[in-house]
């Protein structure tokens, strides 16, 4: 499987090689759009045209596969409002549309390449926030977040309660139902978000899970939750749907507060992935960091000014948020926190582009079965770096989120053997790269997402502020091909209840009299 295709006149390029999974899924190249969220959708979780446009813009840019944004399997498991959800069958039509448009858009990326003109795949990321519920919305004002533990999220102080066994079974079924809906919507697979501190991590991590029942304690017990989910999905989808697991190679739970336990190690992660593969996982997606955001994820800076501007939306979410906000807004403590954030990443700022999780992924690649591809995320945006990693067999694919937001046609750029490293000497007329800038890892998109539409907010990359805003607002521009009208279904519930026909009072009386 995965034979190398020599491209005409190209060097030993490994990025534009198709990747075949044991589930039968074939991705045309090794570039994945990693899951990255954005507040584009309706409050109740119905998707919007803006999200369709957002996702297709990446497909048109040439990535082989798009992993959807954080898609909650229940309202209680959302991280922010205005994210498309998969908690009900009435969401299926939207996901069917997005799948269709993404597939189509992928074919437009490289129309002349026999392989790369294939469709862009679309994998839904099934997710549950657990206690990392940054903004639960009005539906969740009176409940605590579900988690493996009763201890609050230690960064924001988001309140949570340990799930009962019946709640665990209910959530497992919610994941399975989500997978079934993704299958019915014609999507190419699902990914379980078991990384970055969300619910599955809260079970896996030895630093967070403090249960004493069969879902806590030993690693096998902590992994029981995710293995049950994989099993339930396999049953519900008759084993026909591609399932992959995104997981932490290591938790680094003590990154922010050194007195905390470090959490799971690489060996733990390898063991969990082994079990997951045995249970039916078709690929492993490697990340790190037991909370989100974490100094290692998304790798980059801590933008204090943006934190001051946009973190305020979380003030009512947890019991540490006011304290955090005071730190961010303090003249001395805010910059100190930023220094601390960058120091505790453990990777120098200029080395982020080498991939903060690459060596972890390489270790996993060595240890895990060859037929299970390992995809890695974390700061990649250089063709040379990615190609080297693929050539060395360290990973089978690379997922990119924020650098792709900055330059959505990055795959096209790579396709033409362009790299940021060449930008200094490449003639300006040869390639517009001279006029563009790579992602600066400023992480302003991370904080803007709390209140604003997702996009690149690094003003230094744009000639003017308005140009930047225009690019961000691009997703809301009315394009006929994405209008809901073209499918004949309005946004919102696919089969709305017919409104009750209320007759005027007099006529009712009249009927009665008659």
């Amino acid at each position, binding site marked *: 499987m995965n034979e190398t295709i020599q491209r005409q006149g190209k060097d030993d390029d490994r990025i534009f090689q198709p990747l075949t999974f044991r589930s039968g899924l074939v991705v045309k190249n090794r570039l994945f759009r990693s899951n990255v969220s954005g507040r584009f959708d309706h409050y109740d979780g119905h998707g919007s045209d803006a999200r369709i446009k957002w996702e297709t813009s990446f497909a048109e840019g040439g990535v082989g596969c798009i992993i959807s944004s954080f898609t909650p399997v229940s309202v209680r498991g959302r991280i922010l409002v205005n994210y498309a959800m998969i908690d009900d069958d009435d969401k299926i039509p939207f996901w069917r549309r997005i799948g269709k448009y993404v597939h189509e858009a992928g074919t437009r990326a490289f129309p002349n390449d026999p392989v790369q003109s294939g469709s862009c795949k679309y994998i839904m990321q099934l997710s549950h926030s657990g206690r990392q519920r940054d903004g639960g919305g009005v539906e969740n004002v009176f409940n605590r977040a579900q988690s493996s533990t009763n201890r609050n999220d230690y960064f924001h102080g988001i309140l949570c309660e340990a799930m009962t066994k019946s709640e665990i079974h209910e959530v497992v079924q919610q994941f399975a139902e989500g997978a079934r809906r993704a299958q019915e919507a014609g999507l190419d697979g699902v990914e379980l978000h078991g990384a970055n501190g969300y619910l599955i991590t809260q079970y896996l991590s030895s630093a967070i899970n403090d249960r004493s029942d069969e879902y806590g304690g030993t690693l096998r017990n902590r992994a029981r939750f995710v293995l049950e989910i994989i099993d339930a999905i396999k049953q519900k989808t008759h084993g026909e749907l591609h399932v992959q697991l995104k997981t932490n190679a290591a938790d680094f739970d003590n990154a922010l507060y050194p007195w905390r336990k470090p959490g799971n190690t690489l060996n733990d992660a390898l063991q969990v992935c082994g079990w997951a593969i045995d249970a039916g996982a078709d690929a492993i997606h490697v990340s790190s960091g037991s909370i989100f955001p974490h100094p290692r994820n998304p790798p980059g800076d801590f933008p204090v000014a943006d934190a001051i501007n946009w973190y305020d939306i979380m003030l*009512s979410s947890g*019991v540490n948020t006011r304290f955090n906000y005071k730190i961010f807004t303090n003249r001395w403590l805010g910059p100190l926190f930023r220094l601390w954030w960058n120091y505790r990443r453990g990777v120098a700022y200029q080395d982020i582009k080498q991939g903060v999780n690459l060596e972890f992924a390489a270790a996993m690649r060595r240890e895990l079965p060859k037929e299970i591809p390992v995809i890695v995320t974390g700061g990649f945006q250089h063709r040379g770096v990615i190609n080297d990693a693929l050539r060395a067999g360290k990973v089978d694919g690379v997922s990119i989120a924020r650098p792709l937001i900055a330059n959505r046609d990055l795959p096209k750029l790579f396709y033409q053997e362009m790299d940021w490293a060449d930008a200094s000497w490449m003639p300006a007329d040869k390639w517009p790269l001279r006029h563009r800038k790579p992602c600066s890892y400023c992480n302003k998109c991370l904080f803007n997402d709390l209140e604003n539409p997702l996009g690149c907010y690094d003003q230094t990359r744009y000639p003017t502020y308005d140009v930047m805003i225009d690019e961000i607002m691009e997703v809301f521009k009315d394009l006929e091909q994405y209008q809901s009208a073209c499918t004949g279904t309005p946004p919102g519930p696919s089969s709305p209840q017919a409104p009750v026909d209320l007759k005027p009072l007099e006529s009712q009386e009249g009927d009665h009299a008659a």
Partner: protein
Amino acid sequence: MPPKERLDVVAAAYAQRRRRIVFAIGMLLALVVVAIFWYYLRPLPVDYANAKEHFKYGSIGSDSYDGIPLAVWRILPETFPEYLPHGGENYLRAIALRDQQQPPATPARLSLSKTRNPSNHIEGYSQFGFMFESGRELPVGFSQRRVYVDRVGLNCAVCHSSTVKVNSTDQAYKLYNDPDWKPVFIGKPEEYRVLVLGMPAHAMDLEAYFTFLFRCAEDGRFTSDILLAAIDRAAAAGRVPKLSLIESAIIKRSIGTLRSTLLTRRKQLHYLALLPHSAGDVVSPQFGPGRVDTFSPYKSIQFGFPLDGTFGVSDYPSIWNQRPREGMNLHWDGNNQSVFERNISASLGAGTTPVELDMNRMLRTAAWIGSPPPNRAAELKSGPELIPLKTEELKSPFPRHGEMKIPNYPFAVNSVLAAEGAKHYQEYCASCHGSNGDWSRALIDDPLDNA
């Protein structure tokens, strides 16, 4: 009233945290208050490293919450001189004599030299036979304790110390036959009055002192305004220290309580002969100097018995050589064999109460005068049930003979008169007290039992 809004989980958690913070701050404040009380306001008496000084001036508890504020006590003689013995005539004469010999300095000079003029209370309380050592503000037998303000009370030495008048310093040294002992002279040097600890206070008139306090309290001028004004006047003249604002506020509040306490005692001791009486009142015999009614005050104050018309005025005893007295018939009526109990009862007689009795300090005095340790007393079968005490709590051990020196008779003995007295003793005393002073352990022939 609109319905109470339901708090969401985060607001409820914040509210809970606020309650916890308020509770923690409250606890912290309480700790601070306790610490302030413990280090600054805790009732602590003035203590003395020297056991002899402790006997003279150390506290046994009578200076606690019922103690008279020192500032008030100091100005009572000059505010109410008419209630002093002899209508205050001797007091005023003594003051006049003192001022004639050493005219008081002006306040300006005092502030320069940072000294004070002598206070009038020394002359005042000397009228009752209290003995002021040179340079001491309190007489022997008075202790001091700070209960928000400095207060004074009585201790053992007030009834069991007095002076012996000798003819010369050489004769004073004969009292103890000890070259290391230095005599303390009370009063004018030429009077040669040597302080002897443990002897009966033969010149001290306790009834007159109590009567003086009662009559002061009865007086309409015994108000906080008048007394504080008197203190201010005395302070302006440099005789007493100036009150701080806090002290003056506390004293202002405490004078009413002091007055009602004194008046209560006055009602309980209404039979004292020196108090004014109506015709037909039952009146006790006047105590006179060196004598006291030992049990009538107990009956009326501690027990609240109705007055039965019986009085028992007797001499103060000496308190030397206590160890052999354990097991003897103690008190004047011989109704108890425990020296420990006798010490407590005597302390209550000096003005302390069962609650305020400072047991450890009292026992320090008891050890010094040679009392047996309390645990040994508790082993005795007879007598009332005693409080078990740990001797480890006491810093002072109980030496076999005590540390208080027992004096010799300093004067020559007339052998003719002594022989005659011996005959009288054998005739009238020996039947009860044993012949040849052999420390009989029991009443040999109790006439009451025979009756």
